[in-house]
């Protein structure tokens, strides 16, 4: 009796909460349900099925697609490895570079805008365009800018490097592009966050005789921790979404050694009609990101949702 009273009270309160919230969340919820959640369920279903695309026939086959992906040769593992390497290599550069440049720009008396815009330009340029330029810069022989500079102008190397055609130089080009393209974004986020660090912290440090570098190391970096976490999570999710660079720069060559999960997924689905395996790759990628985020959350002792507390 007593219990049910509480329950009904709770129910009423819950209903009231929903009624209040509905006008606000419902439009978004409907759209997300139709165009994101339903497709997601569809993808998960396909990952457990054989999908005959023209007939729309879906036959349940259990975990066969996952088995095929995981045991089906080295391409998946190269792709997975490359996603992780991409994160390990690019994220620290993006974070440190973004932090450093934002801090320096913040300390400029005049002309900060020029640098803010300049460093942000790569971010607002489309991936496709940027890929074209990089493809062109890393071109073969003396036609590519990088080769030309390294061999013909500065004589650092003796011979031209076929950058985009080899496993490690191809990956390096993909990493470099990722760093170049994303550092400006990190910078912008940090610039905004820097406004939130109380000026008296720096004043105090100054009185203690700390210079630009000491202030940076002992005040800026610690104060930016929540921001760093935000940037890091975003960039790690981004690392698992590397796609256009691979498509346009290396095509995964040689033999899938510069591939990435998204590229593998795209190739399987849209070139080979293997939608089941493609969906399995997508799910593996998503679960990897979730696990990574949770692990990072733990190490940072922060919660992305609660960080502003």
């Amino acid at each position, binding site marked *: 009796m007593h219990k049910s009273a509480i329950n009904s009270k709770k129910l009423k309160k819950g209903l009231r909460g929903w009624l209040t919230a509905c006008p606000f969340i419902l439009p978004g919820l409907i759209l997300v349900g139709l165009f994101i959640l339903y497709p997601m369920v569809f993808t998960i279903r396909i990952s457990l099925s054989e999908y005959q*695309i*023209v*007939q*729309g026939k879906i036959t*349940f086959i259990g975990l066969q697609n996952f088995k095929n992906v995981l045991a089906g040769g080295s391409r998946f593992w190269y792709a997975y490895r490359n996603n992780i390497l991409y994160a390990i290599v690019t994220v620290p550069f993006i974070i440190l570079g973004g932090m450093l440049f934002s801090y320096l720009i913040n300390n400029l008396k005049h002309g900060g805008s020029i640098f803010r815009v300049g460093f942000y330009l790569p971010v607002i340029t489309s991936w496709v365009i940027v890929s074209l330029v990089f493809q062109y810069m890393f071109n073969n*022989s003396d036609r590519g800018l990088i080769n030309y500079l390294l061999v013909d102008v500065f004589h650092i190397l003796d011979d031209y490097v*076929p950058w985009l*055609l080899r496993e490690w130089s191809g990956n390096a080009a993909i990493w470099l592009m990722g760093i170049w393209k994303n550092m400006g974004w990190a910078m912008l986020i940090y610039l905004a966050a820097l406004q939130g660090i109380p000026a008296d912290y720096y004043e105090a440090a100054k009185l203690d005789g700390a210079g630009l570098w000491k202030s940076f190391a002992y005040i800026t970096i610690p104060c930016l921790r929540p921001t760093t976490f935000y940037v890091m999570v975003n960039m790690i999710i981004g690392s698992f979404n590397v796609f256009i660079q691979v498509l346009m720069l290396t095509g995964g060559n040689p033999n899938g050694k510069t591939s990435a999960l998204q590229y593998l997924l795209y190739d399987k689905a849209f*070139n080979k009609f293997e939608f089941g395996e493609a969906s399995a790759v997508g799910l593996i990628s998503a679960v990897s990101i979730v696990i990574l985020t949770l692990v990072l959350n733990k190490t940072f002792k922060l919660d992305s949702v609660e960080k502003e507390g």
Partner: protein
Amino acid sequence: MKKSILKAISLLMVAILIMSCLSGCSKSAEKVAEDEKAPLGSTGSESSSSVKDEEITLTFWHTYGDAEEAQLKNEVLPMWEKSHPNIKIDAVRQDGGQFHQMIVTSFGTGMSPDVARVDIANIAAYAKQGGLVALSDYSDFSDLAKDYMDAPLSTNLYQGKYYGLPLDTNCKAAVINTNIMGELGINGAPTTMEEFIAAAKDRGSYSLNVSGVGDWDMYPYFWLFGGTLTDDGFTKATGYLDSEASVNAMKKIIELHDEKIFTIRDIDGSVDAWDGINSEYAMFFEGPWYFGSYDDCAAKGIIASTIPTFNGNSASVVGGEDIAVFATGKHPEVSYEFAKFMTSKDVQLAMLKSGQLPILKSLVNDEAITSNPVWSVYMKQLESAKARIPSPNNTAIQEIWSETVTSIFIDGVDPQSALSSAAARIDEELR
């Protein structure tokens, strides 16, 4: 909060899993299968008479470039509209890079075009998915087929039926810089590969270039030097791809590469052929579009020639496009009518003006072709050009081939063992 996220995610996963299984068991509601098509009309004339009165629009997807599109819109479509006033053609130009992906997506969404110009390499794959109408089921097909050249027609074959009509054809022929050939001591185009190799041997820099290791790039060389891929029926690679002749062909390519006569751009990082032919390469193999892209070839001393023979035989690879009717279309008969129209003599001649080589036997010796120094070479070369393996798994076969050649040239794998394992893997795909 952290815990609740974890809990929520695991809950979500379970919910989704259950939903997936449930929906997997129940009959799919997304799309009504269109397995059973209405019985095909017996003759073309009958079907066209049945649609005389109503207004119909057919969607036609293509990847023509500017020149070809202009020709299509200004000459070809008016011809069609004249003879078929009730049937409008909505010609949609797609960009070449994503065309295959567009078609794959359209299969999933049921929004395929009625007719499309499709790369010859993809017909079998689309047919296997059930996306195309088997045109050989029409009663007039066998008569029609006699007019087409054999190699282009064969690219439409899948499991005994033809799923398209040849639309245009091409192949690789030799693009030659006569100035550099002159430096090597060859006047004009070399007639034999032996002659060319002897002349280029001591030059010390690459004289012959190929872009990549893919089938389109490498097959001509592999075939030229005596290699074979499969049996004639395309059922088996073991015994052919790994035969002594094939291994020797691959060894010949390696030898030329080692002697600095032959370079693979995507392996060596050498200058691209379109660029290097002006200054350093004596020869490369390319489709007719190279000559379509430049007006000043003759002035630069660059000419087209059939690929020099080796052991007395020339070789090349067939390219081009077919025109196919899609199974999801509402008007298969009319679409077939349009496909036939596109392969008719007048249309073929009109499209030839923009460089689309015809597929009709009757046009091989046509004045328009024989009088053109480039087209005549390509039509001649087509006689020794072979089609790639017509398999629905052609993407996978391509991948195996590229991997094999890459492993030979980059990792230095022994050609015999590389080709043997490739043959075994291709066998799997052909099964």
